[in-house]
């Protein structure tokens, strides 16, 4: 049963693939936003994302479809679709291609090694851009280390999690409560600075985290601790009404000692994997409280909800998936 009093798909940019998963001519099936989609990279190097099912007889373009020039060919009857979703060629058609032969095309942005699609309930153009992360492709920084989870959680919960200061001690075994150094919101951007005491590779020290949200689906973060500097790209994509895909890509500044980078990456693989795993059982079984009982020290949870309301605006109008739900505001 759907557990949340609002749409599962707020407006914003959502990750559908990493750029390296789509080389030229490659096709990838995608589940996102309650839809079956297909992503492919044309010979011109651009990624296109379309609704997956052919309007002809329903085949999934992502399983067996192939790229022809900058178009994708259906594996069933070879109908060709361009990046705008229009059928441009039917090899055996003696007449004109019917106008109705088209699928929905998605607005795509490839940035920081990630392919994003834009979702808006009313079909409007993107209202903001995802900024460049300087550490990506910087030779002083390592290639990203990638983590993936599919969990039964709403994207709103994932977004609130980083601002829920009190859970770091209980869930993640931090040495103390993180201190909120800064908190600002401006339009679609939310910035928060935290500092916390942690034990990293046997060294106890304070680390700082500067976290920037670009909508609910894209989070960039800088982490600095004793002898360690990380750049993080965290992306969350609602898969269907119940589930989200969470992807984390972590880069670290290369040290002059190669073995240290190796050890750090080994450590991160374990640390991030287990740290994140602590949130999952809580998310999968919790309820969403519209009017939570908050204590001093809980962090700016209600401010985050207030800020997030902009992405849910008029959600009820187009999303048939959630029409049977009451649309309560995020802040009760």
């Amino acid at each position, binding site marked *: 049963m759907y557990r949340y009093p609002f749409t599962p798909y707020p407006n914003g940019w959502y990750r559908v693939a990493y750029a390296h998963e789509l080389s030229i001519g490659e096709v990838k099936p995608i589940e996102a936003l*309650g839809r*079956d989609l297909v992503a492919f990279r044309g010979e011109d190097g651009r990624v296109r994302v379309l609704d997956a099912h052919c309007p*002809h*007889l329903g*085949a999934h373009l*992502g399983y067996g479809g192939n790229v022809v020039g900058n178009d994708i060919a259906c594996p069933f*009857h*070879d109908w060709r679709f361009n990046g705008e979703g229009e059928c441009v060629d039917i090899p055996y058609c003696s007449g004109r291609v*019917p106008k*109705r032969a088209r699928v929905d095309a998605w607005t795509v942005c490839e940035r920081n090694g990630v392919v994003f699609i834009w979702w808006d309930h009313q079909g409007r153009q993107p209202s903001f851009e995802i900024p460049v992360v300087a550490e990506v492709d910087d030779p002083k920084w390592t290639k990203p280390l990638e983590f993936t989870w599919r969990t039964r959680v709403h994207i709103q919960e994932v977004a609130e999690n980083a601002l829920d200061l009190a859970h770091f001690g209980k869930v993640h075994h931090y040495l103390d409560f993180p201190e909120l150094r800064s908190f600002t919101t401006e339009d679609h951007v939310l910035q928060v600075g935290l500092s916390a005491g942690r034990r990293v590779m046997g060294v106890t020290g304070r680390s700082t985290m500067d976290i920037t949200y670009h909508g609910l689906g894209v989070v960039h973060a800088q982490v600095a601790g004793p002898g360690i500097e990380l750049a993080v790209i965290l992306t969350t994509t609602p898969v269907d009404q119940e589930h989200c895909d969470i992807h984390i890509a972590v880069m670290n500044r290369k040290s002059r000692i190669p073995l240290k980078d190796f050890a750090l990456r080994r450590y991160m693989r374990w640390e991030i994997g287990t740290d994140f795993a602590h949130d999952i059982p809580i998310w999968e079984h919790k309820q969403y409280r519209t009017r939570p009982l908050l204590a001093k020290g809980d962090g700016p949870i209600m401010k985050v909800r207030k800020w997030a309301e902009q992405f849910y605006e008029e959600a009820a109008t187009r999303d048939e998936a959630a029409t049977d739900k009451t649309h309560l505001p995020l802040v009760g």
Partner: protein
Amino acid sequence: MMRAANTERTRFPFRAYPDGWFAVAKLAELPVRRTLFGRPTLIRWHGQRIEATDLPHLEVRDGLIFAWHHASGEPPSFRIPPVDNTRWSKPVIDTLEVSSHPQEVLENTVDTQHFIKVHGYRDFESLQPAYTEGPHFHASYRFTRALLDHPASPRVPIEIEIQASGLGYSRVEVTVVPVGLRARLEVMVTPLLDERCTLRSATRVQSPALPGPWSSLQWPVDRLFDGVAHLAALGGRADVRDDLRLWQHKIYATRPVLIRDDGPIGSYRRWARQFMREAA
């Protein structure tokens, strides 16, 4: 596997169990308990007769038991035409379970253009426009296809003649034109629970009748053609394998965008509706 929300409804916009004759069990399996047409059914010998709970009309063909199913319990309104298999080889039987509906499986055989992209056939030609005779559907085409399931295999022209009787039984006769070899596939589709089907096929090839002086060789030649039937069945299996890859992920397009060159899909769908009328 998780399914995206927009496909999380019933896959097929029509009845799970169409009216008609469906293969339900092998004679050799009796007695057998099976869920048929949504109900638990016991098929067993009763004296000299075969009996099945709730299914009064049964027929045995080639060791297979066919049952008549009708949503409002009406008696059989047609018969599957008899087939004379006397000069044909022993059948090669294949059985598998697929996630589909009899309407979708049979639609595949009238979807002429998919043979080209999915199965690598070429040079499509319609031999006779598709036509219907009540519960029977006829179509015939000509293609060229690889003789064996191998990229280096030579291509041969073949003629395909399809006759379906209801959605549960169809007979496909394939002639390899240059050598005059004829293969006969009887394809039986039976709907199961949860939008799954059993797909049974019996493949035979025609064995030549040897003239008088050679008649002593008839027996070894017939056995040789039993072997040829296995080769023919290999070709059929390769085609089914290609289809399954697609069926796993496709949805049933209720309002497909069809073009003139698509073959008889539109007339097939109109014909198929007679087996899925909603019970009054």
